[in-house]
């Protein structure tokens, strides 16, 4: 950890305020995510740049709780369900509870390609009240695209994020007929991120998926597929009939299983179905 005496409070030297500066943070060096399109070799990247990094540990409440807990000391992704406890609800700074967490949990992506996990997870910044977040209109994209009702045009594009992946994807829910098709499509889309961790140094296996590795990751409680509905609640995918789902789904998120416990109560009851869901996510043999 850089001593706060050497740098200014946020870890930058006083002569420059350029955020592109490298910030040495021991804990986080090994957790660099690999960027790059599926199938390409990941370029050498700069260390994680986030404004709250480099701070004395005690000084960044959100960072301490959020980021450190998604990453274990060895620097790899957390695969086991017991990642750092993960259950932060009682501490008031959870990663995932939509109602509580400002970042809404979409970590790891940013149009500039920087890892945003740290930034998105600083509790309470920007200072927008939880009430305002939950009351935001649902038609944020509407005016930009000029599409009044996406469904009336026969396609339902929703963004899909995966915890730890550096960028989002978009899928048209109307191109699938059921949950199985959707989950296998998502699997294919996001396998590059998980595989990147399976093999060393992020080089993609030439023949695509490593069966056993992907299966290890997606089986059981490693990842669950969740979605945000019209009421801005985060729900587990699979509870409602497919048509109802496509009508109410606003976006998707592939969440770490351990984080999904913080979801809405209804979801808690359905947590026993998670195994069923995980089975749905299996690649068809």
């Amino acid at each position, binding site marked *: 950890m850089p001593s*706060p005496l050497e740098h*200014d*409070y*946020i870890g930058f030297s006083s002569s420059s*305020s*350029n955020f592109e500066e490298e910030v040495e943070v021991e804990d986080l060096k090994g957790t660099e995510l690999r960027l790059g399109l599926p199938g390409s070799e990941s370029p050498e990247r700069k260390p994680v740049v986030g*404004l*709250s990094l480099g*701070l*004395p*540990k*005690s*000084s*960044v*409440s959100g960072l*301490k709780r959020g980021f450190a807990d998604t990453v274990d000391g060895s620097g790899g992704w957390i695969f086991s369900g017991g990642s750092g406890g993960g259950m932060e609800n*009682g*501490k*008031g*700074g959870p990663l995932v509870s939509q*109602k*509580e*967490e*400002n*970042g*809404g949990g*979409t970590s790891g*992506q*940013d*149009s500039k390609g920087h890892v*945003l996990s740290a*930034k*998105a997870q*600083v*509790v*309470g*910044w*920007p*200072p*927008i*009240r*939880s*009430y*305002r*977040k939950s*009351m*935001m*209109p*649902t*038609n*944020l*994209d*509407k*005016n*930009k695209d000029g599409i*009044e009702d996406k469904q009336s045009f026969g396609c339902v594009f929703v963004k899909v994020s995966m915890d730890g992946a550096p960028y*989002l994807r978009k899928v048209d829910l109307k191109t699938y007929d059921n949950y199985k098709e959707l989950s296998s499509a998502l699997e294919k889309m996001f396998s590059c991120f998980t595989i990147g961790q399976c093999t060393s140094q992020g080089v993609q296996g030439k023949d695509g998926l490593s069966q056993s590795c992907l299966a290890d990751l997606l089986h059981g409680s490693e990842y669950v597929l969740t979605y945000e509905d019209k*009421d801005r609640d985060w729900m587990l995918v699979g509870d409602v009939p497919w048509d109802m789902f496509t009508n109410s789904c606003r976006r998707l998120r592939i969440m770490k299983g351990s984080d999904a416990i913080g979801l809405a109560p209804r979801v808690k009851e359905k947590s026993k179905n998670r195994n069923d869901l995980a089975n749905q996510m299996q690649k068809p043999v």
Partner: protein
Amino acid sequence: MASKKKKEAIDEGKSMEIRVSLFPDEVLERVLGFVKSHKDRSSVSLVCKDWYTAERWSRTHVFIGNCYSVSPEIVARRFPNIRSVTLKGKPRFSDFNLVPPNWGADIHSWLVVFASAYPFLEELRLKRMTVTDESLDFLARSFTGFKALSLVSCDGFSTDGLASIASYCRNLTELDIQESGIDDLGGSWLSYFPESFTSLETLNFANLNSEVNFDALEKLVSRCKSLKVLKVNRSITLEQLRRLLMRAPQLVELGTGSFSQDHLLRADAELEAAFNNCKSLHTLSGLWEVSSMYLPALYPACTNLIFLNLSYATLQSTELAKLLPNCPLLRRLWVLDTVEDKGLEAVASNCHFLEELRVFPADPFDQEGIPEGGGTGVTEFGFVAVSKGCPNLRYVLYFCRQMTNVAVATVVRNCPNFTHFRLCIMNMCEPDHITKDPMDEAFGAVVKTCKKLRRLAVSGLLTDRTFEYIGTYAKNLETLSVAFAGRSDRGMQSVLEGCPKLRKLEIRDCPFGNSALLSGLDRYESMRSLWMSACKVTINGCRLLARRMPRLNVEVIKEDDNDDTQAEKVYVYRSVAGPRRDAPPFVITM
């Protein structure tokens, strides 16, 4: 006893005292009854014992800015005739999830005392307090003449609690639950208002999601002829809104529902006619799903608008530009940054009487990335434009991603009358985006130019210089919010030393440590509270403060077991009630 005193005064020949104490108590109380401001009342009570007594007997409203600064028993003992109570609970940073759940500020113990001390209590206004259904039920049953319930940013209750209020408060005039985090179990609560119930004047349930029985709502609105404020929730459609407006053309404040319709209304003219009827409207809000198609129907109702809250409506600049000319008298405007700088230029052209502007971010967490349309919210250009066209601005809340020192200096030069200046540059520690300098000079300009400044929120890359400016120039400053700023203890010290009227100081993620904390030793008793989180204060520093100032509550919130020496979150406030008796385990009083 009183008349005996007067006799003594006369006997002793103190002419001044004679003139004062010749008033019988009843007259003094009657006169003082006209004094409403709680600051004035405090002054009155300090004049002499007679006046203290007259004041406490004549007071009907008490305002308690920090529920832990005093106990309900002390309040009840001092003021026997209270009819209206305003209470604030949690520190403001709880709005941003910095205060753990179950921290406290539960209203129940207050209600129990009030039930016996003030059986005729009529009004309860709470902010950031925890209220349970049980408490609401207790309230509804204990105070037969209860009239007004306002719960702003409260939590802990559900729609069941509302049903209790509706059922038992026969004289209810106000039910306002704005921005409260409530468990929405359904809309049936509204149907609990009895058919004989007609006294409602204010109804605000805008934050609820579930559908209420529209029939019940329509009947309620019809029979409450004094209804002045109606803010409905999202589930109310445009057509339903139209019907409500036809029943209540006397409305003064309206919160529309979603303002959209799944299918086209049969006749837009009908909608416009309904709004045409509402000539008394001075406040308009809601408009969550507003589509440009229906917006023009609003225009006739905007003639007398003073306050327009579009902060949930994703309007583009063109739509705003068309709407604003219909609101010539506008004084307060809240918008989303989807209107962009161009929209703010429209504000500058049309809203000459504007006093308050709040620009909220539509996408504060960058989740949408940079939108395809290139929209990036508002910038320094919009800010300067508004300042040119609206010289009466005195309140601004501005969320943006970039700003320059020069722009802010220009803004305050154009509008020197700011009393509230809250600038939030959302990218943390963002410097002047052109010069790359810290934003010190921006806030320096603000405090130097705006002599009446009472509230300031700073952001961007800031060194200690900002705080030196504040300490030197902001002599009327009462509230200061600081995040991710400053370089050393000197920063916080400058403020504590230099701002004599400071009442609320809230700081997060700044390098201020024990030295800074202790530099305010002789200030905290004249302040309402101090919040410091993720700074460099240690437990020992807090202990020292507590030891030196026994009439302060110095509370440390400890959520982690990791580091025993750091004080993660510190909340310091003056209190005559002593340490909290209801503190949860993670709140430790030093």
